[in-house]
């Protein structure tokens, strides 16, 4: 286990470094950052001035290493538009995004686990097929469109919930439902698949044969085993939600890092953009590391593989 853990940790560190290089280089190799900052009407001299002012004329490697060295000390530079530093900006917006993703995950699990168990129990009946159909339909909808439909229905028409901002917990309901809706299908399929497999296994037959109540067999014996990969995938889905937050937070004007990313990208505020890219990517690296370690700890077969 220790060997597996150390190997996995080493991979995570190498991936983390690679991701930091990509987060930094991305804006610089996509085009002329100085020209994009200067705007369309800027003269060549203006562009050159901006290039020097932001240190964009120095070799890329020098710029990257300087940024990385400071980033390791939690200094991600200064925003071009906000008075706060990038680190402070991200830290003040992060709680909103974490709340949103956390609620989204709770909603996703709340939909997918009962539905997945039900579909597995009623395998190949209309219940199973409707659950799968709902999953297929859900994944075909554009997430921003689903969000707008929620705004129209529950905000504008029924007036039940606020549709924009992040002042109270009520503001998080609609965006969290939207986020959860799109994370649910894959979790549901996994729950269903796991339950179908477990229900056919010998120890479940034994448990039934012992005369245990169906409820106990289902929830204490079957679900507990089927749920392991679902829990592991949940952490990955949580990471996906952080990156998916850019669309949902923009639709609902929720002041998290996704909305911050969209604002920064629109204004070419590159220190903020690369800071957020780095942070979200590192979050994902850590979450997948934890998921892999949890999986390996629970299932010895993975360690040897």
């Amino acid at each position, binding site marked *: 286990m220790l060997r597996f853990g150390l190997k996995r940790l080493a991979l995570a560190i190498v991936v983390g470094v690679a991701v930091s290089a990509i987060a930094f280089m991305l804006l610089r190799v996509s085009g002329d950052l100085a020209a994009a900052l200067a705007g369309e009407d800027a003269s060549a001299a203006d562009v050159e001035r901006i290039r020097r002012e932001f240190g964009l004329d120095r070799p890329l490697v020098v710029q990257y290493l300087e940024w990385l060295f400071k980033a390791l000390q939690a200094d991600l530079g200064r925003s071009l538009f906000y008075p706060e530093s990038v680190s402070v900006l991200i830290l003040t917006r992060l709680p909103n995004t974490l709340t949103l993703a956390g609620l989204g995950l709770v909603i996703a699990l709340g939909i997918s686990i009962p539905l997945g168990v039900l579909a597995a129990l009623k395998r190949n009946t209309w219940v199973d097929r409707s659950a799968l159909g709902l999953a297929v339909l859900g994944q075909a*909808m554009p997430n921003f469109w689903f969000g707008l439909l929620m705004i129209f229905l529950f905000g504008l028409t029924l007036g039940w919930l606020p549709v924009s901002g992040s002042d109270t917990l009520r503001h998080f309901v609609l965006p969290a439902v939207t986020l959860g809706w799109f994370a649910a299908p894959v979790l549901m399929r996994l729950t269903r698949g796991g339950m179908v497999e477990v229900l056919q296994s010998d120890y479940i037959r034994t448990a039934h044969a012992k005369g245990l109540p169906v409820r106990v067999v289902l929830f204490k014996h079957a679900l507990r085993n089927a749920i392991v990969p679902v829990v592991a995938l949940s952490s990955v889905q949580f990471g996906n939600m952080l990156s998916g937050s850019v669309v949902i937070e923009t639709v609902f004007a929720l002041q998290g890092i996704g909305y911050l990313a969209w604002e920064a*990208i629109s204004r070419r505020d590159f220190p903020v953009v690369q800071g957020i890219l780095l942070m979200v990517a590192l979050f994902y690296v850590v979450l*997948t590391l934890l998921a892999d370690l949890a999986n390996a700890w629970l299932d010895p077969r993975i360690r040897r593989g």
Partner: protein
Amino acid sequence: MAATAAGPKVGKRRGRVLGNPGLIVSAVVLGAIVIMAVFAPLFAPYDPYAQILDDRLIPPAFIDAELADPRYLLGTDNLGRDYLSRLIYGARISLLIGFLTMLVSGVIGTAMGVAAGYFGGRVDTVVSFLVTTRLSLPVVMVALAVVAIAGGSLQVVVLVLGLLLWDRFAVVMRSATMQLRSLDYVAAARAIGASTPRVLLSEILPNLVSPLVVVASYEMAQAILLEAALSFLGLGVQPPLPSWGLMVAEAKEFMLFEPWMILLPGLAICILVLAINLLGDGIRDATAPEGR
């Protein structure tokens, strides 16, 4: 012998195709959308860019029969452009970006996956590392950032999405190739002295077609959804092109009184993505080994 052995198998496959209504319906729907997109000038009643400023924000008949105008079947937008014509031309953008992105990412991912699965060892380690790194990057944020600097054109969107969406191709092709590699006929081909490129091209690749089609359909659907999201956020295809995502964005400010303007392009995306996904599922079921 060979003929009798092949006979029932072919029949069974045909039975699987015909006995799968999802496959047939989705193929018909997708076919209809493709034909409509290719021959858009024949199907669209108006020029999708022509602004008739006297006829702005006319709702379709099924929304408001009194305000509707029989000349505009699905109404007009805030600039007096025929909504039906824009929706038809919008299918071109979605299909083109979806298809080209799928090609770019398919070539990258398949090359990586086959190499990793066939050669194993160090190649496999490098590919696994690249896949892990790619998965750590937030797709939408990266795509938005690149488009913001490089400019929102069709080519840029295809390129950035193509360079981001290859991971599933790589993962699936890797495991499929690993399975094929250990089979007797591949070993036989190598034993009679076939070169590595020859084994890859004539023994491995043809047998990867079925999983490839399934992943390709899924990725094409993903690319269409992502293009719509990028365009919706203003950093994808630029106006006045009738991208469905862009149409939703333009309709946002009229949401309160003209919600149908948001409903229609979203439904169009939904139907197209659903058709592609169901076609992929149907092909998977029809080609899967017995007993699955």
